[in-house]
């Protein structure tokens, strides 16, 4: 099963996305990497690195990030873990996180997850 990491500047937001995703996919391997050590806002190289390690398997890991340094720090973690099967997904972290956790728990491979996030991004909440 593909592992999923949620990276956010906010520890509570990242944990909230994991909470929400687990409602839909209780057996998903999804973990939060939000905020700095100690919980202050920011993105932590070490927290992201440890989170990837925690859910890593041969099926790989998908990462959803919020903005700015969350993206750049995640890139640096992936570079530091060169050779591993890790993919950053581009999309909304709440809807994307729920969809990716669900798909991963159903056995969807890493390569197909970006497409699923795209669908989540394009799903309208209102009809107009």
């Amino acid at each position, binding site marked *: 099963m593909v592992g999923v990491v949620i990276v956010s500047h906010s520890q509570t937001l990242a944990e909230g996305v994991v909470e929400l995703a687990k409602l839909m996919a209780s057996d998903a391997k999804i973990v939060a990497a939000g905020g700095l050590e100690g919980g202050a806002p920011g993105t932590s190289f070490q927290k992201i690195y440890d989170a990837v390690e925690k859910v890593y398997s041969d099926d790989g890991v998908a990462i959803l990030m919020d903005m*700015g*340094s969350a993206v750049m720090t995640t890139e*640096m973690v992936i570079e530091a873990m060169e050779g591993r099967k890790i993919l950053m997904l581009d999309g909304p972290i709440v809807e994307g996180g729920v969809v990716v956790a669900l798909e991963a728990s159903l056995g969807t491979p890493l390569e197909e997850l970006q497409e699923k996030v795209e669908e989540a991004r394009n799903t309208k909440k209102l009809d107009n």
Partner: protein
Amino acid sequence: MKATAAKIEEEKDFLTELDNEIADGDHGINMAKGFNAVVEKLDAMAGKDIGSILKTTGMTLVSTVGGSAGPLYGTAYMKAGAKLAGKNEMDGKDLVEAMEAGIGGIQMRGKATTGEKTMLDSLCPAYDALKAGIEAGEDLKDALTKAVKAAEDGVEYTKTIKATKGRASYIGDRSIGHQDPGATSALYILQVLLANL
């Protein structure tokens, strides 16, 4: 590095205030945290070559800063360090090469260019001035003095443009009139380098 850390610490509140005006208000605090962590590692680095010291500086910034300045400055120092690997002294030409590699790292990591109200708006004109001076045969102090002047002009320039990269881009036109904190901290780093030649 120690002087840079001292300068950043001194200007911490001002950088944070600048950042507060247009973004999330953490630049000064984050930079001070990062450079203070670098200072703590310096004693263990005594006797190492410039490349190793810059590389350690970059890795320390990445793991301690927590905001965009971490991966951006971190990548810059690591790339510059790779250029200066094995060197115990550097001349003007070395500095030009190191700065070129560092700026390349920032552009690659931030997918940014000049005119977007970022640290590149002070670093790129400074690099151009430094390179022109060194190539014209000026000594390092004269060339770097011109580079610092170009960086100061660059910081002024950031007041006139709107942010299209980074957190400040969320406020769009309302960022005009404000000085960019990243361009400002980059200026401080160059000023400290000049003062400690």
